[in-house]
Every structure is written in C-alpha cells, then in structure tokens.
C-alpha cells in the first residue's frame, strides 16, 4: 500500500482501480481534489486583492494630492476615480474576502477537519471555481471596455446604475452586474457542497459538538449566504434588464421604485457582512485555543450565540437606509434590532477573552494575528453602535466615519483573518514551516500602519468629510490644511503598509523553497487535519479515514501527560 506524498498532491496510489487525478500541468486545471481547488481560490483571491489594493493606492493618492499625476497610474479623471472606488469595494468583498475565507479555507479545512477524503461533490466543487474564475475575468474585462469600469459605488443604486446617460459606463456597468451574478452562482454551488459535507460526511464518532468551530462558522456563513442572496439575484436580473433592454423596474415614472433596489441589495448586504465575519471568527477561535493550550470557554455558548447572530442579521438591513427616504417608523425598528445585534457579538468577544484567561499563551505569528483580530474588530464593532442609532446616523451617514467603521471590521475580517489562517495552515498546505521572524515583521508592519490609515479617517468623518468625492478642494469646508494633512498621513501609511506586504510574499517564497520541512503536527493541535502528512496526499488518509473519540479542544486535560489530546486517538 505504498503511497508518496508530494507537495503537488498528485496521488500515486497503487491500488488497481483507484482513480488517478489528472497528471502534469492538467492537474492544475482539471483536478477535483478539494485541496487543489482551495489553492486555486486562494491564489485567485490574493491576486484580486493586489488589484483592489492598487486601486486604493491610486484613489488615496488622488484624495491626498488632488490633481497630481499618480505614479504608476497617471492623472485620475473623475470617472476613473468613481470606477476605482466602486471596484475596490466590490473586489475586496466579493473577490477577496469570500473566496479566501470561505472558499479557500473552507475547501481546504472542512474535509480534513471532519475526517473525510474530499468534499461530497468534487466535480461541482471544480465547477464552482471555474464559474468564479469566469466572474473574475468578466470583472477585469469591465475595466478595459469603452467607458471603463462601473463607477456607481459597490451598492449600485439606480437610477445611477441603471441609466447609461447617468453613469457613463454603458458596457462597464452591465459587465459589473454580470460578474457579480456569476460570483453569486459560484458561491451557491460551493455553499451546497460545504453544508452537505459538514452535515453528512463527518468521521464516525464525530457528533455535532465535536466539530471544530471554524467548520461550523464557515458552514453557518454559507447558510446565511444561501438564504440571503436570492433577493439580490432577483434585483441584479432586474437591474441588468434596466441597463440593457430598457425595462423600468427601478424607474419611478414607469411604476418602478429605486428604493426597492436598496431593500433588495441590503436584505442580502447585511447578512453578507456576517457571511465574511463568521469564518474569520472561527479561524481566530481555533488558533487561540491551540496557542493558549486551553479548552474553549463555552463551545455551545459560542455556537448558539453565532446562530443567534446569524438569525438577527436578517433583521437589521435597513440601517443602511436610514436617510434614504424610508418610512421613519422602519428606522425605529431597525435601530432597536441593530443595537441588539451588538450583544451576541460582544458575547463572542468575551468568550474568546475568557478562553485566553489562564491559558499558557505562545505568541507565534498566527496567534498575533488572531489577537489583533479581536482588538481591531472591537473598535469596528463599537463604532458601529454610533451608526446604528438612526438619529446619530443622520449626521454620520455617507461620511468617512462610516468608512472607517467598516474598514475596522472588514480589514480584520479579510486581511487579518486571512493572514491568521494562512500562517497557521501554511505548514499543512505546503509542507514547509514559515519564517516566524519575517512573519512578525510583516505583522507589525501591517497592523501599525493600518491604524494610522483609519484613525485619521474617523476624525475626518466626524469633521463632515463626505464619501465618494473626487476632489475635496471643491468643498471649502473640507479643504482646510488640517484635513488635507490627515488625508496625506493616511495615504502615506497606506503606502508603508503596502510596502510591508513585500515581506509577506518574500516569506512565502523563501519558506516554500527553503523552509524547514513541516512535521504532521507542528503546533501540537487536536484537530484531525494535523494527523496526516503535510501536505496531505490525495484522499487525505490513504491508510484509512480516522474515527473520532472526543471534541476538538481537549487541551491541558488533567488526566493526560501531554497538554493536547488529538480527536482521533482512542484514549
């Protein structure tokens, strides 16, 4: 029963009828192995992240030094500015946060952590990536068509987004809608895979409460996505038709209603932020348990709290529309629900802190990222309370206060969460250990500049700085030297932060080439993925899928000599 594990996951099983994955270069295109698909999502998402980061560099330069030619781009015209801002947001949410946190780490971790040999529908898994890749290509094409990329903000409110005369990006706006719709289809396909796999394909002996939190979180996030995206798919179809064939779904003169679009968008848009939040929280929890060597403070509490958050997330959507002309009575209701939802999130933070308390903490790079997630997300969450109160929101809406709030939530989710997961599972994915010193340099070089970017933006927002403005020199009250100085500080900090990402890529490359070979379980963790080779071969456990005897967080058990207790050990 000889098998060879290689980094490239080509399987060498010698059983007579075992299927061979595609060989050679084709395995990168046609493989149905969940680990390969995970890497495809990961690299595509990271590549799109570079594009989104480049856009943010360009428009921040324009805001800090208006009218100047931006090095590496040229002079920014108003239309281009709108397209940059729109597509930065769109890319980061749909083409970075979702593919990396859910599709990449979900695909990689879920089958391994539940003791399965693959996802339940490997070919649909492959199809979901192909549709996703197509959606990314369509979006990128939209930047190069006549008129350029869509510039109506990632929220795409009609009539601006529906009427070409207004948005001036006739082709770009339709391609944008098409790309987003394709991305939704890809994640619906993927979601079915994740949910069904977790529900059905667990190892014998793995009861519901023995599932690692990150798996629960990714699946609950998938459920939230699948149940909330429908109305927006309906809306996207309607918007596409308004754009291309002249229907009037959102044209008031013809019986349509632009506010309907807003509701369709935000009914999905709010659960969507929890769709990306939950996986990041799950990753954080698993890393903290491993590096605090301590059992989770309240597994069931955390699980039920998360479900409650997910349910509540469907009841808060109109807080994005407080000043859009909705009925003020709705504003009352949505203020209450929005403030309520901060309670379960706060509870999650308390449980995580309680887990840390009394633990034997090792500050490895993944642990630093996990701790940073808590600290930064806390700021984001607390500032959300100001915005959830409809009265305060009358002032804050569409200012940079909102923008700083959601970057203090999205950045921890999409960037800190990604780096936490990446540095934690890199040894398992690539079979090499990452350089911890470089990892720490990258960590501090990201976190400190991140705060220097966005704290000034809170100040600017409170000072009245509107969002989505091409040139603040046009607004005398926002064109003061003090305000421009803050903009420039933020922009310089962004450039510093982007520069430090070079350390990350260098670390990846050097570790992959010359890093120490990773053992099966370098972190001495309990979950099942650490019981097989690094990286796992095709089929994950060729010598037989594991059975499970206990939960995933049995660290520092008093009856044991070792301070960890893998799930698959009989005793």
């Amino acid at each position, binding site marked *: 029963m000889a098998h060879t594990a290689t980094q490239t996951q080509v399987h060498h099983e010698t059983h007579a009828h075992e299927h061979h994955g595609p060989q050679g270069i084709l395995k990168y295109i046609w493989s149905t192995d969940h680990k390969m698909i995970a890497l495809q999502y990961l690299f595509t998402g990271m590549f799109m992240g570079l594009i989104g980061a480049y856009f943010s560099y360009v428009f921040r330069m324009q805001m800090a030094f208006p009218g100047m030619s931006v090095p590496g781009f040229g002079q920014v015209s108003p239309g281009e500015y709108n397209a940059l801002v729109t597509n930065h947001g769109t890319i980061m949410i749909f083409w970075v946060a979702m593919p990396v946190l859910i599709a990449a780490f979900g695909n990689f971790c879920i089958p391994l952590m539940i003791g399965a040999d693959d*996802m339940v529908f*490997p070919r649909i898994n492959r199809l979901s990536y192909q549709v996703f890749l197509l959606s990314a290509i369509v979006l990128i094409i939209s930047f190069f068509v006549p008129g350029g990329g869509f510039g109506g903000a990632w929220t795409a409110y009609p009539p601006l987004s529906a009427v070409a005369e207004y948005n001036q990006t006739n082709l770009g706006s339709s391609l944008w809608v098409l790309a987003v719709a394709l991305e939704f289809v890809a994640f619906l396909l993927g979601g*079915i895979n994740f949910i069904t796999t977790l529900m*059905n394909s667990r190892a014998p002996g793995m009861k519901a409460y023995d599932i690692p939190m990150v798996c629960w979180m990714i699946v609950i996030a998938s459920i939230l996505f699948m149940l909330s995206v*429908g109305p927006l798919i309906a*809306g996207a179809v309607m918007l596409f038709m308004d754009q291309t064939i002249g229907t009037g779904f959102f044209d008031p003169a013809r*019986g349509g209603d632009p506010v309907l679009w807003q509701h369709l968008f935000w009914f999905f848009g709010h659960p969507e932020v929890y769709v990306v939040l939950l996986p990041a929280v799950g990753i954080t929890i698993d890393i903290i348990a491993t590096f605090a060597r301590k059992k989770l403070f309240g597994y069931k509490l955390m699980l039920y709290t998360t479900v409650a958050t997910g349910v509540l997330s469907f009841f808060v959507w109109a807080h994005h529309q407080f000043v859009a002309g909705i009925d003020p009575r709705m504003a009352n209701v949505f203020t209450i629900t929005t403030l309520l939802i901060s309670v379960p999130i706060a509870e999650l933070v308390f449980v995580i802190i309680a887990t840390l308390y009394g633990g034997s903490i090792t500050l490895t790079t993944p642990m630093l990222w996990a701790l940073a997630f808590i600290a930064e997300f806390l700021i984001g969450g607390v500032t959300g309370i100001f915005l959830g109160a409809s009265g305060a929101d009358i002032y804050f809406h569409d200012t940079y206060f909102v923008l700083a709030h959601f970057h203090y939530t999205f950045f921890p989710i999409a960037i800190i969460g990604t780096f936490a997961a990446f540095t934690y599972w890199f040894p398992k994915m690539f079979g090499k250990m990452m350089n911890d010193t470089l990892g720490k340099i990258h960590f501090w070089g990201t976190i400190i500049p991140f705060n220097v970017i966005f704290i000034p933006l809170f100040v600017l927002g409170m000072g009245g700085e509107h969002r989505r403005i091409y040139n603040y020199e046009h607004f005398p009250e926002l064109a003061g030297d003090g305000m421009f100085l803050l903009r420039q500080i933020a922009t310089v900090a962004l450039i510093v932060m982007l520069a430090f990402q070079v350390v990350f890529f260098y670390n990846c490359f050097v570790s992959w080439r010359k890093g120490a070979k990773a053992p099966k379980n370098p972190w001495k963790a309990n979950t099942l993925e650490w019981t097989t080779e690094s990286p796992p071969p095709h089929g994950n456990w060729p010598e037989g899928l594991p059975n499970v005897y206990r939960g995933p967080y049995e660290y520092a058990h008093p009856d044991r000599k070792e301070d960890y207790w893998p799930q698959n050990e009989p005793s």
Partner: protein
Amino acid sequence: MAFPKPQATLRSATGIPTGRLAVWWLLASEVVIFGGVLGSYLMHRLGHPEWANAAAHTNTWIGAFNTFVLLTSSFTAVLAHQAAEKGDGKKAAGFLVLTIGGALTFLMVKSYEWTVEILEGFTIQANGFWSFYYTAAGLHALHVIAGAIIMGIVAADAYRGRELQRVELIGIYWHFVDVVWIFLFPLLYIAK
C-alpha cells in the same frame, strides 16, 4: 469511465442521503431567489392597481393549459421515481422522457404565447406589469430548460441501470419547478 465518488459522498450522519440533502439546500436557495422576484412583483402589483389593465391581456386558457402540462409532468416524474425505487431503470427512463416531453410542450406553448403577446405590443418594456411578467416567467422557463437537460442526462444513466438514486433527485427539483408555476399561474393570469 464513471467518476469514482469519495467516501465522503456515501456517508450520511443526518440519515438523509447526500444527494437529496444537497437538492433540499438547492431548493432553499431557489425559494429565496424566486421569493425575491415574486415578492417584488407582489408589492408593486398591490400598490399599482392600474396594472390590472395590463394583466387583463394575459391568456388564462393558455396559462391553465400550461399548468395542466406541468402538473402532468410532475405526475410522470414521480412515477419515474417509483420505478427507480423498484430498480427498473428502463421504466424510470421512460417516465423521465415523458416528463421532458411535458417540459418541451410547456416551452413551445409559452413561445407561442409570448410571440402573440409581443406582436400585440405587450413587450417587456411596455410597462411594469409586463416587465415582471416576462422576467418571472422567463426565470421560471430557464429553470425548466435546465431541469430538462439534467433530466435527460439522468434518464440516459437510468436506462443503463446506473445512478438510479438520481431519478428521485431530479424529480424533487422538477416538482419545485412545478410548485413555482403553481404560484405564478394565479399571480400572472388569474389575479386580474
């Protein structure tokens, strides 16, 4: 060469076979998609009583006939399932082919219906009612087409005695398509 399934596919911690569980989740997501379209239509329709003037021009008899066709095709689909359960792949395939026939009939009738309506000037841009009419029924028709194609593949496999469990699964999807039409029919044709 048939694709070898991972062991993950064959496990069932919930007691529901994996394929069927997946179809239920697919349907849950489809409910919210059609719910979004139909909910939007419903709100507009209730708020715009003048749309009744447009709705008066839909052809209730054609709608009723198509409802009859889809109900019958659901009947043949469930008979296919019954045959598959007994292991009779050829009979199941035969019933599935009848179901596909129902789908094609539905589509042909709808093509004729829409052609007539478009020639009379009731285009998708004519007004809000017609925009929703074509969008909702069109989205439904796309699902009919997709279902018919997949059903053809399942029927071909079933005829050779393979993957018989999929007859039930495509059947469940097909019944859902029928249920959507059961609601579209009164919404678009009867409520005038």
